[in-house]
């Protein structure tokens, strides 16, 4: 990775459950103040909390630039509904939507639906890949210029620019086309946590942004290289992949902690990497890893969202900006633009063009 590649930063704004939107709006605005690429909001059917996609939709009109990435499970949900909801988040935010694809592996979650038994992670991640695939097809099922409003012929749409997706997966099929027209970004941004073995293939194949957990730069670099290699094997240009190191951060209440640095394996971030220290040292770590090519950026999960996000933005990010290592304003409007990712061409329009 060239040393000049832009640094990408994102933050999780979940935490102990809150039921008032003002809380989430405050955090998203704070992150936007720091010009972060996006915020994520975790979700699960198995623990208290609101539906994350709806919360970020409520946040959308109250913010202007920040990307909005809710966790969406693909296990007990309908792929058709999910793709509509994510596309709609993109419409209401004018091109700032993503979705963090997840699976529900537990029996407790399965019993909430009573539709299918719990299944092994690798099977569910294959299905998650199919969900991502059908989502992208549905987003393409309307070409961008399908709506013509041609008074002379009475045609509202050019139906040759709407397409059945005719998707046949292992556990579901979808005929299409979408109800929602192609969203502003073409495809909202797909985020996948590619740390675990079963998720990695799905991440390499379908992710625009892949999160990895690592406790040393060499480990992150290896994960990134592996993901890029796998992406290439799927016919993708590896440069269309952004690999972010996921860090749980505890910025305490001192500028620098006595022993700053990474620790692995504390109970709060099972299997992940956990940073404890001050905002300045965190900035040092981010700069060092990024400069060394270990990652395209970082996804930070504050241990106490209110306190730590404030320290990330006004401490860590401010310092990175001061050193010209991170942007001070958003040059573009959409999440894809923040990430330096092109708006995807429409597969059906391309096919039509060749025919």
């Amino acid at each position, binding site marked *: 990775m060239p040393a000049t590649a832009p640094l990408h930063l994102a933050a999780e704004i979940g935490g102990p*459950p809150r*039921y*008032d*939107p003002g809380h989430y709006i405050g955090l998203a605005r704070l992150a936007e103040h720091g010009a972060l690429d996006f915020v994520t909001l975790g979700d*699960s*059917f*198995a*623990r*208290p*909390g*609101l*539906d994350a*996609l*709806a*919360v970020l*939709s*409520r*946040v*959308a*009109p*109250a913010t202007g630039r920040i990307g909005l990435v809710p966790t969406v499970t693909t296990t*007990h*949900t*309908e*792929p*058709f*509904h999910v793709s*509509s*909801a994510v596309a*709609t*988040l993109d*419409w*209401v935010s004018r091109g700032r939507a993503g979705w963090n694809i997840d699976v529900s592996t537990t029996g*407790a*979650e399965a*019993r*909430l*639906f*009573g*539709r299918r038994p719990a299944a092994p992670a690798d099977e569910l991640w294959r299905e998650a890949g199919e969900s991502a695939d059908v989502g992208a097809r549905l987003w393409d099922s*309307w070409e961008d210029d399908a*709506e013509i*409003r041609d*008074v002379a012929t*009475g*045609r*509202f*749409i*050019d*139906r040759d620019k*709407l397409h059945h997706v005719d998707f046949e997966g292992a556990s*579901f*099929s*979808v*005929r*299409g*086309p979408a*109800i*929602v*027209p192609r969203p502003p970004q073409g495809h909202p941004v797909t985020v996948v946590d590619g740390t675990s073995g079963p998720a990695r293939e799905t991440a390499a194949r379908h992710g625009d942004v892949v999160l990895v957990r690592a406790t040393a730069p060499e480990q992150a670099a290896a994960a990134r290289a592996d993901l890029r290699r796998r992406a290439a094997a799927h016919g993708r240009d590896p440069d269309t992949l952004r690999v972010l190191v996921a860090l749980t951060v505890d910025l305490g209440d001192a500028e620098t902690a006595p022993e700053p640095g990474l620790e692995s394996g504390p109970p709060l971030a099972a299997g992940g990497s956990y940073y404890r220290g001050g905002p300045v040292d965190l900035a040092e770590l981010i700069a060092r890893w990024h400069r060394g090519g270990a990652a395209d950026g970082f996804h930070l999960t504050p241990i106490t969202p209110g306190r730590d996000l404030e320290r990330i933005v006004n401490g860590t990010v401010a310092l990175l900006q001061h050193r010209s290592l991170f942007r001070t304003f958003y040059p573009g409007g959409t999440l894809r633009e923040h990430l330096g990712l092109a708006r995807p061409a429409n597969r059906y329009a391309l096919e039509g063009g060749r025919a």
Partner: protein
Amino acid sequence: MHLAAHFPGVNNTTVWADPRSRSQIDFSSFEHLARTAERGTFDFFFLAEGLRLRERNGRIHDLDVVGRPESLTVLAALAAVTDRLGLAATVSATFNEPYELARRLATLDHLSDGRAAWNVVTSSDSFTGENFRRGGYLDRAHRYTRAAEFVATARELWDAWTPDGAPRPFRHRGQHFAIEGEFTVPRSPQGHPVVIQAGDSPEGREFAASAADVVFTRHGTLEAGRTFYADVKARLAKYGREPDELKIMPGVTFVLGDSDAEAQERAAEIRRQQVSPQTALLALEQIWGRDLSSYDPDGPLPDIDPDPESSLVQGRVKHGDPSPSSRLRSSRGGPIAVAARWRALSEEKGLSIRQTVIETTGRQSFIGSPRTVAEQLTEFVAADAADGFILVPHLTPGGLDDFVDRVVPLLRERGVFRSEYTGPTLRSHLGLAEPVWKG
């Protein structure tokens, strides 16, 4: 009187060819109409749902407005730009699961401080089912048993939280659902989101009487409205409910003018725009079930008979139509009977195909000066033909502007409609009590 705003959506009511017509997708359109409705102190803002694009002979129907965002997500965003307006989403009970949908609705109720509503629909043709995990799914007989069990289950989930703020385990065993666990969302600000029902069969009416807070109907004429109103309200006692606990709100259109004559003229022009020559032929095909594309829309009706088992046109919600076989038997309903009625009308009045469609497919419309329309609306409510109306404008998104600016003040003057919101929640707008917490 209760008033709600229907966002003009996917149908030929919306006159997209009008130069004032704007995007039906862009958030600014939703924001404009919702803010207008809130300025008019309306009870709620209403979004319909369709889960598959209409087709004719395997090809997407291309004449009407198509494409809309997903309702609950749009409404969550609208909660940011409105304060009091109720937010109602139509969501199928057939192609969703209780746990997930109850959670999304409770979330909307929290995000809007108690303004969420769910219009429970059941449309379940296998054509729509092709977009879902289940595939075809559910025959007619099971649609309302599923819907009723779905709503009952959702209510169990909405109550599955203790007053001191902890999830209380639930367990539901029924014909359609066997689920258990903990609900992730505390009881919502309204207790339960408002439940609306749209569906006209005896099963649908019974379901409404047993479980709904509001009925969305098409019975908009005075006589049909009174009959429907009396029928549905009479069903309530059986469930231990008072007539006031269910509001009946027909979906109606309106056209305003400075004078009644001007409004009539405008209404005729709007009908011509809504029923273009191509739309007229398609409307005919929906009954005949045959390819009629070679007919002249300005000529007479076809003299061939309809094909009652046809699937030429798919994805159109058939409001109140029984199954094809009982449609054939029924004197009112079947395509052959409808075709005969249309033919008789066209011969009697010398109407072309297009003119016949214009005559027969309009829904109840209040047409006139603001004063006339205000009078008519008031009369309908006074005559027990409705508790209020869901207004369906023909323009997106400015179609409600004139109504709010010119009719609402007259309704307020007459004292039949509120001048300001008196409570924070949609239940309070509708005068509905918070459901008893079965904790």
